[in-house]
């Protein structure tokens, strides 16, 4: 019977392989496997389902629950991350979700650098019939965020979702620019931004941990979004990030359409990683 499948050495190897292939850091996999082998050797868990439950509980415990932080009006959400991780698409998806939930979101196209970045968010806004404030290409991204917050106030939007340019954490001047965007948001409205969401590509490996550290230093990241989980990657890098920085995972991107956004479900996330 499946619930009585005994744990074998070969199955333990398969477990270790599954965890590593899910991009879980070796610094987390090694201690987990050590504990599992002890528990099995001491006879405290003899079947596969028991071990899987223990591993799942241990990993779920690593992810902090998301706390709803008090926010001002309009609420300000900054979307940040490295190049190509899925920020613009996520900003549009989040705006749609909030609008469908009764909010009045305003998008801010604060990527004034990349070719056709403004057009991309404007195209989404048009498609979803959502308002968007854009800067001009080459303009100051902080000014776009400032203008959007002012516009939200005067138009009665409840939340501003600001999309920013992709930037590598290895580029000091881009991290400085991000720091400035955060400062200017705070000048537009006291306490802004209320959320700084770091969008992580679910197919990334261990580099995600370095990204999270640098972005947190520059922009005080408050939560993570993991995208592209509709592929075969499992997004295991978030566990080391949660462990190191205590950041919760807020949203998961599961496709390229506006509705392909789901709130984080830690148990389902971990189960998908297990053999």
């Amino acid at each position, binding site marked *: 019977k499946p619930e009585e499948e005994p744990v074998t050495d070969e199955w333990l190897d398969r477990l270790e392989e599954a965890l590593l292939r899910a991009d879980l850091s070796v610094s987390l996999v090694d201690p987990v496997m050590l504990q599992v082998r002890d528990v099995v050797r001491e006879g405290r868990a003899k079947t596969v389902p028991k071990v899987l439950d223990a591993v799942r509980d241990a990993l779920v415990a690593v992810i902090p629950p998301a706390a709803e932080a008090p926010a001002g009006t309009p609420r300000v959400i900054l979307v940040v991350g490295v190049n*190509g991780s*899925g920020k613009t698409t996520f900003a549009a998806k989040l705006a749609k979700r909030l609008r469908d939930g009764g909010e009045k979101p305003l998008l801010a196209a604060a990527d004034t650098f990349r*070719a056709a970045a403004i057009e*991309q968010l404007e195209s989404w806004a048009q498609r979803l019939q959502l308002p968007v404030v854009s800067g001009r290409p080459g303009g100051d991204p902080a000014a776009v965020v400032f203008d959007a917050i002012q516009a939200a106030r005067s138009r009665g939007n409840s939340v501003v979702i600001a999309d920013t340019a992709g930037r*590598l954490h*290895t580029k000091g001047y881009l991290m400085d620019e991000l720091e400035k965007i955060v400062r200017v948001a705070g000048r537009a409205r006291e306490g802004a931004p209320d959320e700084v969401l770091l969008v992580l590509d679910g197919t990334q490996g261990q580099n995600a941990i370095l990204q999270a550290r640098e972005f947190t230093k520059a922009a005080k990241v408050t939560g993570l979004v993991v995208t*592209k989980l509709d*592929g075969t990657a499992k997004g295991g890098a978030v566990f080391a990030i949660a462990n190191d920085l205590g950041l919760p995972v807020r949203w998961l991107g599961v496709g*390229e359409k506006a509705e392909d956004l789901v709130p984080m479900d830690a148990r389902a996330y971990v189960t998908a990683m297990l053999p």
Partner: protein
Amino acid sequence: QLQDRLAATFATLQGRPRVTEADLEEALRDVRVALLEADVSFKVVKQLVATVRERAIGQQVVQSVSGAQQVVKIVHDALVEMLGSEASPLERATTAPTVIVMVGLQGSGKTTTSAKIANVLRKQGRKPVLVTVDVHRPAAMDQLEALGKQLGLPVRRADPKSVPLDGGDTVIVDTAGRLHIDEAMMAEVESIVAATHPTEVLLVVDAMAGQDAVDAASAFKARLPITGLVLAKVDSDARGGASLSIRAATGIPVKLMGTGEKLDAIEVFHPDRLAQRILG
């Protein structure tokens, strides 16, 4: 840094002139951790550790700091060997036009790399034409058009069902990002390749990619005549182990590396440099 980790491991070994096989296992654990942290795939790490063990035993690694250096050199050489020890240039067709089709997962860097390659070819005196058949992503065609304008090069918008191949001696076809498990999208890119008889089909992979990169690349290789890999966003300082795993698992040679957002930020692949990065 593998070098430092090994030096620390060797320093704790009892003062014998030669390292025993048991001592070597300590060092090999360091090698395994370093490679996994560099995003080298699970299977390739196993292979590499076995190769390094065999060669280290054969070489009779000495105990001491120079022993650590010896092991690093064995690992470095094994990496270079696996990566393919020479640079692999872009091919030209014997009868014009040369056709280059760019493929890969979403957001890996295809559109930007298409423009970068066009820039390189134009500097070499060739006449590249950029064609985008990305009818899926919002403003994707605007993006390539804007890049083409920056370079003063022609960009054509087309439907994947009829890709124009005239207007220059080299046609670079930018396709939409797609999942290897999306049947409709994989069928689309198969038909693009069938219709354009490309000289090169380049798989663009993000240097920050993790363990999944090998599975995705193998799936692309199984259905398309992939001739080379472009490793984009190498300036992220990601160790880039995925490129090694892909090469080992599929035989696809790394041809180019994207090293920045500007359109001149592209370099010919150097196995030695990539091996250095993977070693940390």
